[in-house]
């Protein structure tokens, strides 16, 4: 043993320790703070398609080749699942005219641009980019490939060969609020979601107004998890609401499974976005607001086949079949089910509107006057929450 050795492990060790600390913090920041500014999820992962040389387009079959890209796994019983359900519905309806290819788990990075270009190279005629963060990539690929039709979900920009599509999910959220208030005795509800942004406010406000149309005393406590995909945080958020005494909770994240399961374990009712999750909460499941992408995809693909496609934004609600209410759980009384059918009919016919005045915000200020209804652009840019919603940032 010589002195040189102890020196080597002593002094220099500490110097390296500092750079190590820096490395840890940078890594922790990368790991902990990766967020996405807008509509859907942060979940990313390497492409799921394996080493097969092609994506599976059949361009010589004479069928229209339609590609779908999702940001997460389609088995999430959530956002991506519902897009895949839409794709499957499209295939079932137009099997003889359309061939679809799904590529899931594509991060919102240069990766998605490569996948889109590969789809084009392999013969895709229409590409559905289903995640909000794909917009800029889709615009770039669309510019390079003017003969291919691109459709982006929930985006606000277009190009000659790129259109956008969305659906009025506030309609089923309103109905879910009515049904929940008719099912749960306790007028305190909870709401678990990611970020305080407009697409969340559509749903939160519609759900609250629906519930208040049954019981004026309904309050909705909101917990934001700051992530579209953090099952631990969602579990804890539901638990915290249950501990504070709410009787039902609406879960709005990419995959609501964690929240719905946590609600069932805590013995409270659950409502969720995207899909039917009754199997995860056999006792407490009430209903959910569901995107009806199948109809949207049929309409878009139909217009491409008829050469009537334009780049104008596509949107619709119950009337167009673009949204629906999920199957009811066992706790929902027959009267509530009947009421929901009636509401769906009236909303579809335009007889009633979800955001009909008078509507006051959380500070009691009147935002929509009696006799007025909010327009779709107004709804899409919601930056306030209705009276009865509690928690979150000051509005």
């Amino acid at each position, binding site marked *: *043993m010589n002195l040189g*050795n*102890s020196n080597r*492990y*002593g002094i*220099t*060790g*500490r110097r*390296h*320790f500092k750079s*190590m600390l820096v*490395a*840890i*913090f940078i*890594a*922790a920041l990368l*790991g*902990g703070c990766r967020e996405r500014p807008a509509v859907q999820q942060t*979940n*990313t*992962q390497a492409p*799921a398609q394996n080493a097969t040389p092609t994506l599976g387009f059949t361009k010589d079959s004479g069928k229209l080749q339609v590609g779908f890209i999702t940001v997460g*796994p389609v*088995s*999430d*019983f959530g956002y991506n*699942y519902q897009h895949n359900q839409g794709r499957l519905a499209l295939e079932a309806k137009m099997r003889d005219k359309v061939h679809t290819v799904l590529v899931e*788990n594509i991060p919102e990075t240069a990766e998605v641009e490569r996948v889109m270009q590969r789809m084009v190279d392999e013969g895709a005629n229409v590409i559905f980019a289903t995640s909000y963060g794909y917009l800029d990539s889709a615009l770039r690929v669309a510019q390079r490939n003017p003969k291919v039709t691109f459709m982006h979900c929930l985006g606000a920009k277009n190009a000659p060969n790129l259109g956008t599509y969305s659906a009025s999910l506030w309609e089923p959220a309103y109905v879910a609020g009515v049904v929940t208030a008719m099912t749960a*005795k306790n007028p305190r509800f909870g709401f678990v979601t990611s*970020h305080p942004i407009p697409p969340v406010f559509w749903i939160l406000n519609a759900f609250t107004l629906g519930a208040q149309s049954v019981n004026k005393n309904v309050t909705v*406590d909101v*917990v934001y998890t*700051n992530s579209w*995909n*953090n*099952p*631990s*945080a*969602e*579990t*804890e*958020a539901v638990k*915290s*609401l249950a*501990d*504070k*005494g*709410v*009787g039902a909770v609406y879960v709005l994240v990419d995959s609501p*499974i*964690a929240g719905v*399961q*946590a609600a069932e*374990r805590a*013995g409270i009712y659950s409502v969720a976005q995207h899909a039917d999750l009754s*199997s995860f909460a056999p006792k*407490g499941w009430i209903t959910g607001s569901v995107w009806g992408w199948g109809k949207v995809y049929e309409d878009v693909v139909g217009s491409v086949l008829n050469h009537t496609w334009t780049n104008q934004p596509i949107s619709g609600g119950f009337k167009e079949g673009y949204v629906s209410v999920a199957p009811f759980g066992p706790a929902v009384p027959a009267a509530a089910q009947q009421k929901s059918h009636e509401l769906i009919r009236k909303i579809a016919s335009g007889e009633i509107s979800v955001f009909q005045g008078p509507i006051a915000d959380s500070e009691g200020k009147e935002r929509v006057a009696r006799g007025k209804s909010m327009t779709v652009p107004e709804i899409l840019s919601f930056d306030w929450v209705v009276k009865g919603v509690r*928690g*979150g*940032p000051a509005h």
Partner: protein
Amino acid sequence: MTSDSMPLIVAVLSSALRSGTGIAFAAVGETFAERAGVINLGIEGMMLVGAMAGVMTRVNGGSLVLAVVAAGVAAMLLAALHAYATVGLGGNQIVSGIALSIVGTGLSGFFGRPYVGVQFDGISPLNPPGLASLPIVGPILFQQDVLVYVAIVVSILAWWVLFRTRLGLDIRAVGENPDAAFAHGVAVVRVRVTAILVGGFLAGVGGAYLSLAYTHLWAEKMTAGQGWIAVGLVIAARWRPIETLIAAYAFGALTVLHPHLQATGIAISPYFLAMVPYLGAIIALVVTTRIFARKGHALPAALTRNFQFGRSRRT
């Protein structure tokens, strides 16, 4: 279906134990590795592999005990890669650890694909009759699942091993000065590899806690950075298992304060609340480093320095 309101402090403490348990397992494991002079930044990846392997085992019919053990073993295999790269080949520990994290994230995502959205019976709170319904202490101490208690036992055991046994002495000696330890007849390589593997096993159990007990599901990247926090907590706790456990609970408490405060309906920005645990971890790190730097509870002197077998043999 009604739920009685629980005082905020009780609800937060009760949740803090659960929220901190996954990190506690991983951080106590990391304490072993770092005490032996090997930092393993791959905790995030190992936790994910453990979380996924636990669910995979459970869904395919394994018992809960088997699922937890499988999670530990799977993560341990990943840790073996780190051991091979650093102890075996003398590779840079930081680089190998970060690579391990990326590999673990990818592997768990790939093999976990079929298990997204799959239901299984997970680990539920014990709720011993009588005790669980006690006011205040009931929710905090008794409405917990068995792994919460295991984490406490493991931390105490880790302290005992590190500071009261011959093996612990060897581990610390190897972490302070492997050449001297080697000269004294300690099997440096074997001790370091053992410590890394123990660290991997516990990280896997920590991951399994998140999937099997805390959330009852598998989702990609479900650890959401907890593995990185575990690395920080080990340092903040000055490489001591009991303190590490307490640090994990403190971090857990700050983490759950975020939803619980929001649930009370007060108007605080969720972004500010979400920042608090990380801010707390940094402050704790700074404070403990300042205080203990003088008192000599400093880091293992040979941390991140590989043992150069051949050179030592010549001396």
